[in-house]
């Protein structure tokens, strides 16, 4: 659970409810199918933490809609980040590529929030070490703006203009064990040092 940081008051507003997230996921699954002519050769790779269940959900929707089995997995870009030295050491997440690799496939990277674009840049570098996909596309649940790199998403669940001082929190039942929700929290603290990702649940490691 995210605990309130010391300092000023915070206001949270829900921008996507559980039902909204479900509808948005369904639409994105349709869009991926449309743009890739039925999802042939597509691999969905989630960026940990919350991109992974999103990729799994998209794969399930694509199966419901067209009966295609889209391989999905996860890709941890931590070792390729450019901001490793700016904060304490980050624990590594799981990288699990579908059997058969990425060569010649259409890889759709899936993440919850697109903010500076630095995570996606790192993921592109990581992906290149595993092979040469035919194309790489990006699907995000929320695009909150404030890009620092020339990166854009191919599939966007919701465009959400935000202030830098606000943070976008995504809650997914698989990870957070609470109902699906996307909310914007106005925070009264220095921003711009984060990567725009939702704070992790304080897991006992």
């Amino acid at each position: 659970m995210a605990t309130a940081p010391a300092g000023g008051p915070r206001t949270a507003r829900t921008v996507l409810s559980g039902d909204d997230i479900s509808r948005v996921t369904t639409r994105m699954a349709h869009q991926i199918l449309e743009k890739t002519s039925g999802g042939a050769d597509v691999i969905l790779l989630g960026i940990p933490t919350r991109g992974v269940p999103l990729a799994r959900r998209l794969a399930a929707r694509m199966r419901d809609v067209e009966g295609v089995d889209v391989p999905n997995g996860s890709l941890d870009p931590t070792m390729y980040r450019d901001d490793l030295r700016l904060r304490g050491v980050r624990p590594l997440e799981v990288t699990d590529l579908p059997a058969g690799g990425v060569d010649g496939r259409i890889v759709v990277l899936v993440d919850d929030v697109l903010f500076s674009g630095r995570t996606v840049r790192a993921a592109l570098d990581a992906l290149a070490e595993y092979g040469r996909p035919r194309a790489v596309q990006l699907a995000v649940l929320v695009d909150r703006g404030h890009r620092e790199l020339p990166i854009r998403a191919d599939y966007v669940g919701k465009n959400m203009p935000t202030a830098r001082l606000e943070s976008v929190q995504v809650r997914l039942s698989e990870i957070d064990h609470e109902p699906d929700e996307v909310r914007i929290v106005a925070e009264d603290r220095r921003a711009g040092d984060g990567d725009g990702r939702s704070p992790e649940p304080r897991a006992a490691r």
Partner: protein
Amino acid sequence: MKHLLSAEDLGRDEAIAILDTAEQMSLLGDRSVKKLPTLRGRTVVNLFYEDSTRTRTSFELAAKRLSADVVNFSARGSSVSKGESLKDTALTLEAMGSDAVVIRHPASGAPHRLSSWIRGSVVNAGDGTHEHPTQALLDAFTMRRRLGRVNDLSVTIVGDVLHSRVARSNVRLLHTLGAGVTLVAPPTLLPVGVETWPAEISYDLDAVLPKSDVVMMLRVQAERMNAAFFPTEREYSRRYGLDADRMAMLPDHALVMHPGPMVRGMEIASEVADSVRSTVVEQVANGVSVRMAVLYLLLGGSPE
């Protein structure tokens, strides 16, 4: 984590975090490009005052796979042979911009002293008869990979416990991770105060083998033997060596481990060392993954 000086410093969560990180690092071995950009621009110094093939190469490879620059420094053929002290050598290396020093030294406690002199991280790669924490970590990693867990395993460590830093580090780490350890050795090769260690002690290898999940053979360290610890090599080998007959007493799933270098025919028979139960070669491969994990966890974040 700033330094890795002793397995005793590692709490359970920390040790498990290292093993989990090593698990991700080991996936690199399957890739065609075995290199990560993570420690680009960092410098790791291998400061070796004792001979070593395996550990030094393993650390060197680990650092290089993370894209760090590596400087190898061995006491032989350096200004140490002209009488330079450890402190002066360390300060010289630090002045050249090293971020971490991996040290092996014949004196117990040398890495600890070193850590108070330099700003960078210090990794103990074996100090005298004290500790060798990365060896214990790679042993635990090997057990977890082969047997699925470390918790509740019965691990028997056999041989020259007195001179073995590997045994000390293993007893501490395995205890932290919840395994039960039994030490088997001639009474002359057990250190004073061994009864205070979190381990059982036995002098009868045959009695212990049938209930062991892992048996770890230690090398008889002839170079540290300054007294007659046992009558003859043949007698040692008969009572404490692992041969095919003894290996047959182990449960079917049990592993035979050895930190290397092995003295075949002494503590371990050739047929045992080359059997499918032996993890000797695997331990070396796992050593690189574990050392990558340690270097990443020490150097991967902000320098504070």
